């Protein structure tokens, strides 16, 4: 009998079905890999298990008995612990204090006794941490150990780790995997969410693959190879809805040579005018640093970014955080970069805005990009699709020589998606060098004349004849990375 079983879990958030038909069974003394593309529902599924999300339907069983997990404290009481991507630690408290935080106990916590108890506990799990160290002074890997220790201290038999290696350096990854193997040998059930094939094969014995909210496979890892896993993760090819633009690459527009920075491990990339290059990859493999580099808010540690056809315009991946300013109007958002450059004509004269010109420019953009809004509306009042079109309109206002679009259709409906993708093709046809960075494989296949995969801050090129889901899926898991 499995220790934990999630059967046929369904969960809908508004119009999107995050999970439907998701199942997961955990045996004692095993490390279970949970695999899937961005948005496949992995995080939602483990949040169901941890009581953060109530499923709409489906059954959760522990030791064969159906249970209800309405909140994380219930999950903890049932022996389920979670190590989040973002640590839930209080930085100003000591290791020992974080360990007991939230536990029922006496009102008085003598420091010495607390530390002594913590030391015993940490030693029992083989975790080398100083109980009296302030948590904020710890390295990231140590904080992660503290999170694990905290779950174990609460008596967790089931430990869920959501992409734990994303924040770790390679030697730390090895340490973590060794720790997980030790805990497995002690009989714990571990769920490891990871996109890294080598990690999965190093420590996992079973794998469950989610695709679009469904469990498509659950089987022992032995005998599965990378291409099989990649195929399971991304599915079989559907004919793409559109095709990359047919343009002849022109002169060099942008060049990255040996680009290194936190998150970028040496990237070489050449973009030519009129070319549409797409970078696939699972989030967290360098997309963020690359976007920041092109946006001009991050510098390289070494290597070089050469822009031969300035300016670069970026359509930001997170349009709310880095893109639009929702409480400014449509027209103000549109000309903010011009204001940043000191108030450029024709919108500004003597650094003062010319209302008529501004209104006209905004009206033209609204018409050209079919944005459903009036110039003076606050950006907040627009739908997601219209906000994204505004973001595109702003990027193109600069008449860029290089256009970088990061997940440009995330969260958009079918019509808005098609319109934004067509806009990128049109730019390429007009001679702009277009770089698409997208975690969505269909989008990459539909737009990219050339395709490469971002993996651990490197680029893995996809051969021109191999633009298939299976081939790219393999690379997304890091096959051939070393």
């Amino acid at each position: 009998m499995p220790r934990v079983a999630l059967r046929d879990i369904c969960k809908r958030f508004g119009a999107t079905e995050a999970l439907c038909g998701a199942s997961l069974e955990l045996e004692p003394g095993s490390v279970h890999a949970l695999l899937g593309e961005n948005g496949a529902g992995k995080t939602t599924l483990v949040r169901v298990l941890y009581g953060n999300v109530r499923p709409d339907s489906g059954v959760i069983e522990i030791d064969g008995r159906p249970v209800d997990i309405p909140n994380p404290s219930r999950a903890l009481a049932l022996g389920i612990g979670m190590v989040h991507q973002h640590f839930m630690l209080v930085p100003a408290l000591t290791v020992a204090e974080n360990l007991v935080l939230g536990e029922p106990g006496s009102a008085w916590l003598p420091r010495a006794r607390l530390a002594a108890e913590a030391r015993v506990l940490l030693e029992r799990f083989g975790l080398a941490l100083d109980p009296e160290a302030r948590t904020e002074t710890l390295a990231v890997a140590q904080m992660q150990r503290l999170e694990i220790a905290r779950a174990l201290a609460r008596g967790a038999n089931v430990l869920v780790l959501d992409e734990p290696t994303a924040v770790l350096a390679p030697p730390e990854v090895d340490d973590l995997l060794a720790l997980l193997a030790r805990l497995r040998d002690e009989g714990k059930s571990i769920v490891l969410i990871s996109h890294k094939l080598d990690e999965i094969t190093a420590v996992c014995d079973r794998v469950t693959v989610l695709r679009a909210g469904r469990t498509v496979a659950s089987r022992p890892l032995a005998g599965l190879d990378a291409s099989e896993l990649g195929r399971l993760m991304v599915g079989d090819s559907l004919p793409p809805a559109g095709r990359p633009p047919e343009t002849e690459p022109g002169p060099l527009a942008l060049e990255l040579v040996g680009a290194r920075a936190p998150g970028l491990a040496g990237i070489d990339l050449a973009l030519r005018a009129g070319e549409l290059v797409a970078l696939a990859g699972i989030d967290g493999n360098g997309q963020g640093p690359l976007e920041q580099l092109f946006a001009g808010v991050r510098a390289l540690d070494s290597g070089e970014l050469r822009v031969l056809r300035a300016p670069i315009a970026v359509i930001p991946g997170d349009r709310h955080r880095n893109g639009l300013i929702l409480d400014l109007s449509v027209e103000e958002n549109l000309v903010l970069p011009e204001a940043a450059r000191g108030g450029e004509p024709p919108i500004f004269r003597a650094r003062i805005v010319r209302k008529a010109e501004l209104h006209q420019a905004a009206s033209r953009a609204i018409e050209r990009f079919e944005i459903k809004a009036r110039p003076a509306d606050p950006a907040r009042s627009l739908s997601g699709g219209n906000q994204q079109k505004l973001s595109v309109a702003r990027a193109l206002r600069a008449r860029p020589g290089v256009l970088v679009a990061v997940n440009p259709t995330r969260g958009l409906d079918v019509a808005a998606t098609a319109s934004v993708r067509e806009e990128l093709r049109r730019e390429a046809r007009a001679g702009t060098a277009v770089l698409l960075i997208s975690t969505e494989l269909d989008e990459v296949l539909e737009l990219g004349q050339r395709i490469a995969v971002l993996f651990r801050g490197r680029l893995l090129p996809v051969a021109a004849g191999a633009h298939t889901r299976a081939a790219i899926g393999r690379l997304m898991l890091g096959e051939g990375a070393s």
Partner: protein
Amino acid sequence: MSYVRAFAQPLGAAAVALAAAAGLLALIGADPIAALGALAAGALGDRIALENTVVRMGPLLLVGLGVALSFRCGIWNIGGEGQLYVGALAATALVTRGLGAGPGAVSLPLALLVGAGAGALWAGIAAALRVRRGVSEVLSTILLNFIAVLAVAWAVHGPLQEASGAYPQSDAFPDLARLAVLPGMRRVHLGLVLAAALPFAVWVLLFRSAAGLRLRAVGLSPDAARNAHVSPERETTRVLLISGALAGLAGALEVSGVTGRLFENLASGYGFTAIAVALLARLNPIGVLPAAFFFAALASGSGAMQRVAAVPSVAVQVIEALVILFSVSFALPKSGAR
């Protein structure tokens, strides 16, 4: 519609606060109608009362403008008080020690400029600490207030003390270095005309200029602003300098237009009341005009209320606090909206 709402909320806050104050006055055994009537008469009842109110309004208006501007940029400049004092100190030093009885046509505008510049420099310390060292401007501006107020106390006991040495105050400003009282008025001086014009200038800066768009963008979302190539650090510095200059100018106007000399407790509390002014105005530069008038009226009517209705003038401070409480509990505008 939005204009109606923009006025309705602050008016509502003021009205509710006055009603609550009436309740409180009744509670301490005073006749609320008589007390508030005395307050109104003392602030607005006759020409002299009205002029007193308008004179008090000047510093509230200028410092309040600076506060509104910096809050729009997401910078919590609590240092209006200190910036005002430093402005007054610098203007006084220039007039009584630097130029002596120099030609008024030069010394007066120069004194105002120096006052504004000193206020800007004082706020600039906070800007530098924030941009270079990450020190919260809330902390630094509050602490700089103490230094400024004590610096004025030291100056009027020491280097700037009047020649006779009788009182801890500076020499009187020569007539040429004083702002003229408007024709037909007793106290309302030329500086107030300038002060009354500034809200309109600041409104243009905030809502019609490239700089205003940048600073509102930074106030609403520093990340998005940075991505649009707006430097939050530069806007932070700029807005603190402008905000400090406005407060420094208020200090210079106070010594050259109202008191004619520098002394301790020159404008005690104006810097803080100005924060309430900016909040009641919902951070709108034009709204600062009526908001400053309202708080000035409260302050100048409080004496009359004490005399006529035998209500301690501290009750006025309670009313002020209530107005602030009610005006901030009505939703403040998103700092980028008008």
